[in-house]
């Protein structure tokens, strides 16, 4: 058993060619026993220098296929690359595993290959610093490499597992970099061997990486020290690890040689030719047990069985068709994806996170429409929280009833996947916005507000006998003005109307009529959205105790309540830019802009990951409003986090001046038209003057009348022909001129607010954190909890109680101090 140190010293690779055939790798290989090479090399018998001329790496050839040939030269095994690819020429699977110092140092053109190795080192040299080689997973994000490409990594991982197993270690440290963040995991080799796979998923910032590590063929060879009496090595050292990765929506299997296999899900009855592109099947995946690949093609390598796992069985449901194709029943099929760079693609985080945040893992095979699919929600990919057999609807989507409670905040950051049947096969899609689970506020705003009781003023009607509220269109307003202004041609109508006013009020004046108009307000939303809007009724508007109604062309609406509510929309406080950790809560400011009410600060702890919803309650008698800001947590709790008063209804002036002007025009037109007798005019004029200024009747009449021409002629020509003169046109001209910005930090005020942003939004201002590489390795990350020191790894700091150590007191104190400051386990 090899145990101890791994100190490579000097090895050189020299050559001038761009292929390995032209290159000589000189390895200062010790002659001591049980030294290994993992790599296809041959030994120069005389100098322990290995000539690698046989090691040919070309763009279209196989390499590293010779196994166990150097048994007499202290060479164990050469890592292999099974499938050549134009994009993967390289030395990435060559490993050196000596027990005495050795270094690989590339030279000249080989540097590019060695660079691809990217084992932790510097320059072009590759120096291992521990027995366990680090392994990294990389990927392409938007065409840019993020860390290593992971096909290299696979070989590393497998070989690390192999090396660890040789050494009797029980864990393997793996590490990968994605999106600039380094993550690490400790894999339990016994678990790997017993279960056949290791699964974990991680969030790198907001990118979700889901990894299965499966050792499909794991037959450890013997070291040279384990030769039998015939001096024959039994080394097989056949490693074929497979890493199953979920990247974005796609699921990949990565083979040791850098060959990736992407899962395909053929429809039942669909034929697939078993060729070089297909080769990986698994059965009964519902057990979580992955079964080794069945490499039937010459292009695939591997045999044997999963360690402690089941024997490989050709899926029973694969039925050969007459033309040599196969249909797959209850199995997963993996198709080799030729263009490796392409399949290394990562989705942009923003693409990944268009969903809701529930992750489903499908551990059963999917055989087609009508299949029973068992799924479960898990937190961080470890513990199922709920499981069920989701209903497959008639569209062959199984999304119904996914959210069944027991969901935690952790799960909320997971993702939901949707399998859809496209008439030919199942396809895995992101869960889209329009298929939100029920906790998200949907079209029915009532659901969101249920747990917030709105004020009981609702239902207070306007039909209290004092006022009536009419909900009108622009054309109604225009007509109202027209009725008061130009419809006076109907002498009988107005005569009757005016007399009716006199009967009702005991006076006889248009000023009296205007005083019945309490207010006219305009709102920036269609009142049809208000529940208290009465559906259109008759064409008549009654004012005061008017016997004769004002008659409109349109049928009119009224409001039944002074107070009503409208839905202000919602947004989920989450995006691909969130970190997914403490940084989303600390040093992050979140403000909410509420149109017509202003902005408020929100507590990140309340809203991050949750949905913020606005409900406006509006007082139609004053135009005032209160915006209730509510937070909808994924588990169904809704709570109010703010209430902002504002002004949403803008006044259309109905001033006494305006009334006087209208009255004056009314009278002027009446006189011009000759429809009123002089006595009536005198009465009207006197009444107006009295109502406006309190002057004695008649004294101001001449002034009013004299002002008619000026007012009438002063109407803005820009109003357009569709605007009637009079009160309505004044109101609309105000509206026309109102497109000005309003201060964002305060509530709305009248027309000016109509020019402010009309859509609520949340602004997030977060800190920018420069990446600190190796932070975790050197100083760990914040943690809490009680552990055994030996159960942790890497940097560890904390408080210990030194009971049970047979040491001097000052030694114990030293131990406590050192651990408080941090040690490396």
């Amino acid at each position: 058993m090899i145990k101890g140190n791994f100190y490579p010293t000097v090895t050189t690779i020299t050559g001038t060619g761009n292929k390995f055939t032209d290159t000589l790798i000189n390895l200062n290989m010790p002659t001591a026993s049980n030294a290994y090479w993992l790599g296809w090399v041959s030994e120069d018998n005389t100098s322990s220098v290995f000539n690698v001329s046989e090691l040919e790496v070309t763009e279209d050839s196989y390499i590293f296929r010779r196994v166990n040939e150097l048994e007499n030269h202290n060479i164990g095994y050469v890592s292999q690359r099974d499938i050549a690819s134009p994009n993967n020429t390289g030395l990435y699977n060559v490993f050196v595993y000596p027990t005495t110092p050795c270094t690989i140092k590339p030279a000249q053109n080989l540097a590019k290959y060695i660079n691809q190795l990217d084992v932790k080192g510097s320059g072009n040299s590759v120096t291992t610093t521990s027995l366990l080689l680090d392994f990294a997973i990389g990927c392409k994000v938007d065409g840019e490499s993020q860390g290593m490409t992971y096909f290299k990594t696979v070989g590393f991982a497998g070989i690390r597992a192999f090396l660890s197993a040789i050494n009797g270690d029980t864990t393997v440290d793996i590490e990968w970099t994605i999106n600039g963040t380094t993550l690490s995991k400790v894999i339990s080799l016994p678990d790997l061997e017993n279960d056949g796979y290791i699964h974990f998923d991680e969030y790198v910032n907001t990118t979700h990486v889901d990894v299965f590590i499966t050792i499909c063929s794991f037959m450890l060879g013997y070291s040279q020290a384990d030769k039998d009496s015939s001096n024959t090595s039994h080394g097989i050292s056949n490693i074929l690890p497979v890493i199953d990765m979920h990247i974005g929506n796609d699921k990949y299997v990565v083979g040791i040689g850098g060959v990736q296999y992407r899962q395909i899900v053929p429809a039942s009855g669909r034929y697939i030719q078993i060729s070089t592109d297909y080769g990986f099947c698994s059965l009964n995946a519902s057990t979580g047990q992955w079964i080794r690949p069945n490499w039937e093609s010459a292009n695939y390598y591997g045999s044997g069985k999963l360690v402690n796992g089941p024997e490989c069985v050709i899926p029973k449901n694969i039925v050969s068709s007459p033309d040599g194709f196969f249909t797959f029943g209850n199995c997963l099929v993996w198709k080799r994806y030729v263009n490796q760079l392409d399949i290394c693609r990562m989705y942009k985080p923003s693409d990944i996170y268009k969903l809701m945040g529930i992750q489903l893992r499908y551990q059963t095979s999917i055989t087609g429409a009508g299949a029973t699919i068992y799924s479960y929600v898990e937190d961080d990919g470890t513990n199922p929280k709920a499981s069920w057999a989701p209903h497959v609807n008639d569209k062959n989507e199984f999304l119904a009833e996914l959210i069944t409670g027991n969901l935690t905040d952790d799960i909320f950051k997971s993702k939901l996947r949707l399998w859809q049947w496209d008439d030919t096969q199942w396809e895995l899609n992101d869960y889209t916005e329009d298929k939100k689970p029920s906790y998200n506020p949907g079209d029915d705003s009532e659901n969101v507000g249920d747990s917030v009781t709105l004020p009981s003023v609702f239902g207070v009607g306007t039909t209290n006998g004092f006022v009536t509220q009419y909900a009108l269109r622009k054309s109604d307003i225009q007509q109202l003005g027209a009725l008061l202004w130009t419809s006076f041609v109907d002498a009988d109508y107005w005569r009757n109307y005016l007399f009716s006013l006199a009967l009702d009020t005991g006076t006889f004046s248009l000023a009296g009529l205007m005083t019945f108009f309490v207010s006219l307000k305009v709102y920036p939303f269609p009142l049809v959205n208000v529940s208290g809007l009465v559906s259109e009724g008759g064409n008549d508007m009654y004012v005061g105790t008017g016997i004769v109604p004002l008659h409109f062309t349109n049928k009119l609406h009224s409001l039944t309540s002074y107070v009503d509510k409208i839905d202000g929309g919602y947004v989920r406080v989450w995006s691909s830019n969130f970190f997914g950790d403490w940084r989303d809560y600390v040093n992050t400011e979140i403000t909410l802009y509420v149109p017509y009410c202003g902005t408020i600060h929100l507590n990140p702890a309340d809203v991050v990951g949750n949905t913020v919803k606005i409900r406006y309650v509006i007082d139609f008698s004053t135009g005032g409003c209160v915006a209730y800001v509510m937070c909808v947590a994924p588990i169904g709790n809704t709570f109010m986090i703010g209430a902002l008063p504002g002004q949403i209804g803008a006044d259309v002036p109905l001033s006494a001046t305006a009334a006087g002007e209208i009255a004056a025009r009314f009278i002027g037109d009446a006189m011009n038209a000759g429809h009123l007798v002089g006595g009536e005019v005198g009465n009207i004029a006197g009444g107006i003057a009295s109502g406006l200024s309190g002057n004695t009747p008649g004294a101001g009449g001449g002034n009013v009348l004299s002002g008619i021409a000026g007012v009438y002629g002063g109407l803005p020509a820009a109003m357009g022909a569709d605007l009637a003169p009079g009160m309505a046109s004044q109101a609309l001209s105000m509206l026309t001129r109102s497109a000005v910005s309003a201060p964002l930090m305060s509530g709305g005020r009248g027309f000016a607010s109509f020019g402010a942003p009309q859509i609520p939004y949340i602004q997030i201002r977060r800190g920018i954190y420069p990446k600190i590489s190796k932070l975790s390795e050197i100083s760990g990350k914040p943690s809490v909890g009680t552990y055994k020191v030996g159960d942790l790894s890497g940097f560890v700091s904390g408080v210990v109680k030194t009971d049970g150590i047979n040491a001097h007191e000052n030694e114990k104190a030293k131990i406590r101090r050192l651990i408080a400051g941090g040690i490396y386990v």
Partner: protein
Amino acid sequence: MQVGFAFITCDPLKLDKSGDYTAAVPSVKTVQISNPANVENPHFILDIPAGGTFDYNYCYVQKWGRYYFLGEPTYLDGNRLTVAGVCDVLTTYADDIKNLDIIVNRTESAENKKIPDALQASQSNRQSEILNFNDSPFSVNFATDIVYVLTVQGGSHRNQPGGGENQ
């Protein structure tokens, strides 16, 4: 005196250094410990072969069962030198320490992402992001939509539009 010398390259704070040193080729002829000896901070007196060097920074004293960091050697005369040792309590008691319960503050292997990391510096500039609401009720056509509310006195004792007789 059974003393094994080695050269370690790992961080002194590494708990178990047993995998980080090589068994040195014996190049020390005799080893003594100065008297009186302090078991935690002993001084070693060594004789090395003629022309030899002393390139060790670590040792193990079997008698005391302790590992020691070694300081710079002081050459006395001839091939004799003295070197100070400081007990490496971590490796000496590594097995015991691994069994200790620890209330952990920081670690590489059990991160709690919700706890702020004081070592993660933040730049003074900020990143800003806007999340718009899904929809706004304030989408209106002032020319055609019902957007005006006219409040009039009385009137409700007459027929209301849509409301029938006043209530």
